[in-house]
Every structure is written in C-alpha cells, then in structure tokens.
C-alpha cells in the first residue's frame, strides 16, 4: 500500500499536486490520468524513489520512502518506465532475471527460487516461448511485456508503470490491462499505471487518480464520471466533442 501524507510536488515554479492526502490500497488497480504535462510521470517517478524534490511524505507499507535504503525499495516496488529498452544480445530470460537483483548475491547467482520467479513472470505476460530469444528482433509490444515480466520477477507488493499501453495496439492494451487487473486482484498487488486511454481506465480499473492541478482526485470510476472532473479537464474547444459520449 502506498500512502501520501500532505504530499506536494512540482517543477520550477509550477505546483502539479499540492497537499494531497490519499492512499493506494493493496489489491487495487489504479489508473493515473491527467492532461499532457499534468505531471503523471513526475508523480510516478517520485513514488518510485527516482525524484525526491517533493514535500510531505510517501509511505510504502507504513515505511517512509525517503528513509528506505535502495535495496529495500527494490524489494517493495518495481517500476516500468516509458523508455524503450532493447538490450542487444541478452536473452529475454536474462532480462527478466535482472529483476531478481535485489535478492541475488554480489555476482547475481540465481537460485532455484529465482529461476522459478523468472519462469512464472514470463508465463504471466504470456512470453514463455521468448525466454531464449533476444530483444533486438522483437516488436515494441513484445519488449514492453518482457520489461513488465522483469518488474514482476522483482516480486514486489507495489508495481508502478508509466504509460505501459503506449506501444500496444488495441487488443494488446486490453490484454495488458486485464493482466494488471488480475495481478492486483489475485496477488493483492498495489498497481498504479499512468495512461492516456480514458476508456480503458474507466472500464477496467478499480480506482482513478486524476491530476487536476493542483489537486489529486482519487475516486472509483463511476464516482469519477459523476464528479464531472473528467468532463471539465478533457473539455475541448470543438463544440460537438463530448468526452463521455466519445467514450461510450
């Protein structure tokens, strides 16, 4: 579980989120939405411990993120960035095995537990057949899944993903979201992912976190639609564009 206490973050003179108090519980899939430049990545990176220019507190399972040593953070949360990662001449199994780094010894020796974690992570994203292939001849979507498998192999209670659906086509987006939803519900993980796909967010997630500068609204999808925040934020100048009708 991730908790924010009086959390504020911004860059330069901009305050993206101010005095937020909210919690992302275990077993819950949360979509983080907001307009371009609203600070979705900034917020996720702060949660992942990659950006410490915030005020207030981030608590991960009751521990303050800022006071946790790196290896402890790595055992608590895994992160998938937007960066296209393609490592030449490295087998997918080895890429996923890197996620075991917080558990292996100084030279990274794999135990049976580690190998099992790698195999089940590959299976979870449906990429068992790719274990011995290298990323240089795979599609963006396939590489993305391997990077997600790597995060799963990290076996953390919290999983953060920055726009995981952006390289994927429609069927793959739905498939990825149902995978995330399954992981949240069956394994009790706390999963937060940022996305621009409002339809997916509203249909498939348990909770929506909306950055509405400088507030952070966290509501279940139905209440989020009722609140009118989405209609207001995603309003365009085009007179006949109705975001909700567009979604349905």
């Amino acid at each position: 579980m991730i908790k924010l206490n009086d959390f504020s973050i911004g860059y330069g003179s901009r305050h993206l989120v101010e005095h937020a108090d909210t919690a992302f519980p275990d077993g819950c899939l949360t979509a983080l939405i907001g307009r371009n430049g609203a600070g979705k990545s900034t917020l996720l990176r702060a949660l992942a411990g990659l950006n410490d220019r915030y005020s207030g507190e981030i608590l991960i399972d009751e521990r303050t993120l800022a006071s946790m040593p790196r290896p402890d953070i790595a055992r608590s949360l895994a992160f998938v960035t937007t960066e296209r990662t393609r490592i030449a001449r490295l087998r997918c199994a080895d890429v996923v095995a890197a996620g075991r780094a917080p558990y292996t010894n100084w030279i990274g020796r794999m135990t049976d537990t580690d190998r099992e974690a790698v195999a089940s992570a590959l299976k979870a994203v449906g990429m068992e057949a790719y274990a011995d292939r290298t990323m240089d001849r795979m599609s963006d979507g396939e590489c993305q899944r391997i990077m997600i498998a790597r995060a799963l192999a990290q076996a953390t209670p919290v999983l953060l993903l920055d726009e995981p659906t952006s390289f994927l086509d429609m069927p793959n987006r739905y498939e990825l979201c149902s995978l995330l939803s399954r992981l949240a519900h069956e394994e009790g993980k706390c999963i937060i992912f940022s996305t621009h796909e409002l339809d997916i967010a509203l249909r498939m997630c348990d909770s929506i976190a909306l950055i509405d500068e400088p507030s952070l609204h966290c509501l279940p999808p139905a209440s989020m639609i009722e609140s009118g925040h989405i209609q207001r934020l995603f309003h365009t100048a085009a007179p006949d564009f109705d975001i909700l009708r567009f979604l349905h």
Partner: protein
Amino acid sequence: MSAHHRTAILFTVLLLLSAALFCLDLAVGSVAIPLRDVWAALTGGECPKATSKIVLDIRLIKAVVAVMAGAALSVSGLQMQTLFRNPLAGPYVLGISSGASLGVALMVLAGVSLPLGIAGAAWVGSALILVLIAAVGHRIKDIMVILILGMMFSSGVSAVVQILQYLSREEALKAFVIWTMGSLGDVTAGKLYILVPAVLTGLILAVVTVKPLNLLLFGEEYAVTMGLNVKKSRTLLFASTTLLAGTVTAFCGPIGFIGLAMPHVTRMLFADSDHRVLVPATILTGAVVMLVCDIVSKLFVLPVNAITALLGIPIVVWIVLRNK
C-alpha cells in the same frame, strides 16, 4: 550446441590461444630464438646465457606488459560502453587517455622520471576527465554530447600539451615525444612493480562490479529501481577504469582502439551481453589481440600504436555502419 557449451569452448580456446601467443611473443624479435630455447630459458634449462637474458629480461617483461595492457584497455572500454550506454565509448574516445597524457606530460616535461610520480599523475589526469564527463553526462543524457565532449577534452588537452612541449627543454621533449608513440617495451622491471599490481587491482574491481554493470545495461534509472546504489557503483567503476586505462597510458603511451573495439568483438564472439561472461572474456580477447599486435609490430619493426589503429579502425567503422 547450447549457449553454455559455446561459452565454455570459447573460453578454453582463448586461454590456449593466449598461452600460445605469449610463447610466440617470447620467440619473435630482432633475434630469432627457437621455442625450445625460450622454454629452456623460462624453466631454467640449458641455453646460451645471452638468450636467457633476452628472454627473461626483455621479452618476458614486454609480453607481460602486452597481456596487462590488452586486458586493461579492453575491460576499461567495456566498462565505459556499459556505464555511458554508448557503443563508441572507450578510454581513448572519451578522453580518459588524454587526461592521463596531460598528467604524464606535466611530469615528463618537468623532468620527473620517477615511475610512481608518472603513474600518479596519469591516474589523477584520467580520473579528472572521468568526473568531468560524468558530471556533464548527468545533466545531458544525449550520448552524442558525451562523445563530442570527450573529443573536445582530448583536443583541449592536446593543445595544452603542445604548449608545454613548446616551452620545455630539449631532452624532456624528446622523452615525451617517444612516449606519445606508444610502446610496450619501455617498461622496466621496476615499473612492472607498479603496473602489475595497479592493473590487477583494476581488474579485481571490474570483477566485483559485474552485477552493477549488468543492471546498468538497463540505464541508471532502472538500475536504481532494481536496488543498485548508483553512486557507489559508479565510484568503483571510475576507480577501476582510472587504474586500468591510466596506468597503461602512463607506462605504454596512448594506445588507441583496443579499448573501443575489443568489447564489441567479444560480445559478438560470445553472443552475450552478460558481464559475468564479458569481463573475463574481454580480459582474454584483449590480451590475445595485444599479443598479436606486439608480434606484428616486432616482425615489421613498427610502433604498436599504428598496429592497434590499423586493426581497430575497421572494427569501429563496422560498428558505426551497423548502428545506422
């Protein structure tokens, strides 16, 4: 044939090859010595006194220096390529060798010939360039910027060295110019006592940092989220590269292209990017290629610098073209 088998076979072949080349390097030179006599000189058997002197006092030291230089420069190149996530990084390209050169120039042109003084100056020089590149690279993520800065540092250092040369006395100047040509043969037994421990320490640090290097393949941010202490790892890697590239540059002069080319050759040969394989493998391929360069340079009486460049440039061109 499984990947595991292939790796084991390659390691065996490389080990045998480096042993064979090492012996050949002892046999080749201005005086041809039969391998039988080389063996006798090494094992204390019967052979002419002059032969034993040539083999033990000159060629053995030079061959050891070749192995050390090849391994050190190649591993340093591997570390830089992974750390900066840049296929064209290497001690020479990034200006680390130039930093060392500046240190050496200051020492030699000031008339200091103490080996430890020269090595120390080279370490300080290369460490300074590394820290500078890392500081800039931290702000600017663009790999081209880092490469261009490396080239600028090198040019800047060369200009400073030229000024120093212009102002310095004749004997000191001559000593420095000879050093810049690069040679494996200027290392005396006394210098070997600094070179070998320094390079071995650098290599041990390289082995200790294989796990960080594997995580750094994903970039610094991913490495951090997988629990890596980036600051500590980077410091260890910098210390290692400073010892490896700095020491070799101090005693053998600036030797280009080995550090840039050998990691690529090794990755291709082993079809792997795992540093648990790559670090020991580049040690061997680096040693093998440097021994070959030394043998060739002795056969045709050419400076070793020229040979490494002629051998390395086609590989670099190939990398650039393949990346397009």
